[in-house]
C-alpha cells in the first residue's frame, strides 16, 4: 500500500493510504477527542461521524472535517488545535449539554462518561444555549439494562454495534429533527423488540443513556478491573471483571482475538454466580445419604476407584464421558484423552452436540 505524507500541527507523518486523520494524529502523539467514533469499525467510511467533536482544520477546505471519518490525502496540512477548531468543539459540547440532564452527582456513569470528560477538558460548566430538552420516559423493560434517552447524545454507537456487529438489528434511528433518537421497532419499549440482551450497546454507550441493571451501586473509580477469559463457552471472549470490595459487580468486554470487544448476554450479565452463596467451591462426596465437603484428592481418589471397579466388572464400554462447553478447548482435549486412553472407550461426547 502506498505511503502518504501529511503534516499535523507542524509535524510530518507518514501513513498508508486509507488511514484516517485520527490514526495519523495518534501516531505522533496528538490527541484528538472523539465521542461517536467506534474502534470496532475498521474502515473510515463506516464511522458515523455524527457527533462532530473530532473536527479538525484542513488547509484549502471550506469546512472543518471529522478526523475519524476523513482519510488522509498526500500533502494534507492539518491543524487540530487552532482557535477555530477549539471554538467549534466547544459549540458542539454546548449544544450536546443543552439537551442533557446535569445530574452527574447521581449518574452511575459519572467518571466513565465521555461527555463529562470532554466538558471537563474544554471547561464547559453549563450550556450557553439553554432551551427545550427532549423528555422521554425511562425504559426499564429489558431485564438487564435501562435506557434513558434523556441522556442520549445520538452518537449512534448502539445502533452501529447492534446492526453491524451483533447483527440483531433490534434498534435503529427514528424521527427527524430535534427528536431524532434510537428506537426499537415502532418506538415501543426494548422488551417489545428483537433485542437479545447481549449488552453490547450498553458497553459502547459513551454516556449514561444505557446502563446495566446492577444489584450493587458503583462508580467507575470504585472498581478494580481483572482481565479474564469468559468461562461460559469455548470461544474465549476476553473481558474485565469489575470488582468492588472483592465482589464482582460488572463485566466489560475487552478486545480479544476471538471477540473483538463483543460479549453475549451470558458473558456480559451472567456473573452473579461468582459471589453466590450456593456456589460450589469444593467437591462434595455423598456419605450416608448426605453430601459432605471433601478435598480434591479425596474426590479424584473416589472417581478413580469407581472407574476401575466399573471397568473390571462391566468392561470399558460401560463407561462414558460427557464434557461441557464451559471449559476450554484444551480442557476438552484432555478430557477426551482421559476417556479414550484412561477409560479405554470412545463413549465421549460434549453438551454442545446435544
Amino acid at each position: 500500500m502506498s505511503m502518504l505524507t501529511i503534516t499535523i500541527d507542524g509535524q510530518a507523518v507518514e501513513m498508508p493510504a486509507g488511514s484516517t486523520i485520527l490514526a495519523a494524529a495518534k501516531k505522533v502523539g496528538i490527541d484528538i477527542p472523539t465521542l461517536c467514533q467506534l474502534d470496532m469499525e475498521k474502515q473510515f467510511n463506516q464511522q458515523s461521524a455524527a457527533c462532530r467533536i473530532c473536527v479538525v482544520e484542513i488547509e484549502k477546505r471550506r469546512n472543518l472535517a471529522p478526523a475519524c471519518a476523513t482519510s488522509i490525502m498526500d500533502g494534507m496540512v492539518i491543524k487540530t488545535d487552532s482557535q477555530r477548531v477549539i471554538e467549534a468543539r466547544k459549540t458542539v459540547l454546548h449544544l450536546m449539554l443543552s439537551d442533557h440532564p446535569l445530574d452527574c452527582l447521581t449518574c452511575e456513569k459519572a467518571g466513565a462518561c465521555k461527555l463529562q470528560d470532554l466538558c471537563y477538558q474544554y471547561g464547559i460548566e453549563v450550556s450557553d444555549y439553554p432551551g427545550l430538552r427532549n423528555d422521554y420516559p425511562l425504559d426499564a423493560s429489558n431485564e438487564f439494562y435501562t435506557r434513558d434517552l434523556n441522556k442520549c447524545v445520538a452518537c449512534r454507537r448502539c445502533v452501529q454495534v447492534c446492526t453491524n456487529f451483533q447483527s440483531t438489528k433490534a434498534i435503529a434511528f427514528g424521527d427527524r429533527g430535534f427528536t431524532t433518537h434510537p428506537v426499537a421497532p415502532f418506538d415501543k419499549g426494548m422488551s417489545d423488540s428483537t433485542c437479545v440482551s447481549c449488552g453490547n450497546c450498553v458497553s459502547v454507550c459513551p454516556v449514561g443513556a444505557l446502563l446495566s441493571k446492577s444489584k450493587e451501586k458503583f462508580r467507575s473509580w470504585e472498581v478494580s478491573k481483572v482481565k479474564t477469559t469468559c468461562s461460559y463457552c469455548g470461544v474465549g471472549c476476553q473481558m474485565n471483571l469489575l470488582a468492588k470490595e472483592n465482589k464482582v459487580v460488572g463485566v466489560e468486554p475487552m478486545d480479544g482475538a476471538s471477540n473483538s470487544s463483543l460479549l453475549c448476554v451470558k458473558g456480559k450479565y451472567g456473573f452473579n454466580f461468582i459471589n453466590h452463596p450456593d456456589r460450589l467451591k469444593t467437591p462434595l462426596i455423598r456419605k450416608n445419604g448426605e453430601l459432605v465437603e471433601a478435598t480434591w484428592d479425596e474426590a479424584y481418589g473416589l472417581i478413580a476407584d469407581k472407574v476401575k471397579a466399573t471397568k473390571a466388572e462391566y468392561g470399558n464400554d460401560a463407561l462414558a464421558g460427557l464434557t461441557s462447553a464451559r471449559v476450554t478447548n484444551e480442557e476438552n482435549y484432555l478430557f477426551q484423552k482421559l476417556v479414550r486412553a484412561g477409560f479405554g472407550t470412545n463413549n465421549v461426547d460434549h453438551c454442545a452436540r446435544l
Partner: protein
Amino acid sequence: MVDKNQLRIATRNTGFIDPESVESYIAVGGYQALGKCLAEMKPADVIDLMKNSGLRGRGGAGFPTGVKWGFAAKYASDTKYVVCNADEGDPGAFMDRAVLEGDPHNVLEAMAIGGYAIGGNKGTIYIRAEYPLAIARLKLAIQQAKDMGLLGDNIMGTDFSFDIELKYGAGAFVCGEETALIASMEGNRGEPYTKPPFPAEAGYWDKPTIVNNVETLANIPAIIMKGADWFSGIGTETSKGTKVFCICGKINNVGLIEVPMGTSLKTVIYDVGGGIPDGKEFKAVQTGGPSGGALTYKDLDAPIDYENLVARQSMMGSGGMIVMDEDDCMVAVAKFFLDFTMDETCGKCTPCRIGSKRIYEILDKITIGQGTEADLEKLRSLSHNIKDTALCGLGQTMPNPVLSTMRVFEDEYRAHVIDKKCPAGVCADLLEFTVVEEKCVGCTLCARVCPVNCISGKPKEVHVIDQAACIKCGACLDKCKFDAIIKQ
C-alpha cells in the same frame, strides 16, 4: 407571452408539446441527441463536450457536470448508475416538477446520454411521491421510449442498453442531498454520510454513480445538438447557460422563469416579474431557498450567477426566489426558514440536530420581545460554528438565512431586541393596536368584530382598546372604515 429577457433551454418544450406523446417530443427534435451520441460520438467525446459547455449542476452546489461524469467514467466497474435527483424540496421551487410534467422524455434522453458517457446501463429517478402527475407521465414516457427502442436493450440498434426505474421519496427535504438520496434509494434511512468517497467513485450500492438534478439533465440534449460553444456563449464567465427561477412572494408575475445566467436581479424582479404589487417597496429577495440568503436593493444590479450570489452570502440553490416587500419582517423570515430546516434536519449530526433548534428558539425569543443584545452575538457565533461543523450541505447552509438577514438588516434585529418593536409590523407580540381619537367616529364596528371583546366605547364616542386583553389579531384594523386604528 414572449419576453425578450427570457431564454428557454431547460424548459424549451414545457407547455409547447404534449408530454404524454413521444411523437410530440420527437417532432421537436427529441432523441436526436441520444442518436447523435450513439452514432457519432465516443463516450469520452460526450464528456469533453459537457466539460466544454461549462454546464454546472442546477440542484444547488453548481458542480461542473462534465467533470462529475468524467470522474464516474474513470472508475472501472461492472455496473454504474445514473441517478436523476427529482426530490425537489425547497419551499417555493417547482421547476423540476414543471420539466417532469411537461417534458419527461427530455430527462429520460439526458439520462441515457449520461449512461452512455460514463459506461452505465442503469438509471434511477428518485422522485418525491408528492408529484403524482410527474410520476404518471414518467412511467408513461419510459414505456413509450421502451416500445420505440429508445430505452431498454440495444437502443436504436446499437450495443448500448439503458433502462430507467423510478424510486419514490417520502418527502424528506434532506433526501435531496445526494448521499442521503442514495441511502434512501438503498432502502435505508434517508441520511447523508461523509464524503469522500463521492458517489462518482462509490455511490448507489457502492458503484460509481452520477447524481444529476432534473434541470441539469433537461439542458443536456440541447447542448449535444447545438454544441458546447453555443451553450458556453450564454451566461457569464463562470456560469454558463440559463437558470430557471421560481419567483414567488410579493411579486406581480408569480411563477417559473428561465433567464440567461448573468441577468440582473432588477431585470428578474421588475421586467420579468412585473415588480412589487400594490405599489409597495421592494425590501429583499431570498434566493437559494432555506439554504440561501437575502439580497437587497444594493444587489439589484448584480448579475445573477453562482459566484456572485455566494459573494453576497446567498447562493443559487435550486432557484427559488422569494420576494419580500416593506411589510415583511426579516427576523420573522429567518425564523420561518429555520422552522423549516429544524423540522427537516435528519438529526444525524449534533450541530444540525440541536443547533437548528437553538437558533430557532433564539429567533423566537427575539420576535416575542424577549431577546437581548447577547442573543444577537450568540446567534452569530452559533451560526458560524454550525456552518463549520455540520455533516452535510443542509446543516452547513442552514444558518444562512440568519447570517444574511443579520448582516443586511441588523437595525431590524436591534429594533426587536432594544426597542422591542417590529418595524415591519409583523411580530404580533411587539405590536400595539390603538385608536386614533381624532379619527374615531364611534361606529362600534371594531367593538363588534373584536373576538375577545376588548374594545369598549359607547356609540358615537371614541373607542378604547384594552391592551392587556388584546390578542393582536388585527380584525379591528381591517374592519375600521375611517383609518382610526393603527398598529405600531
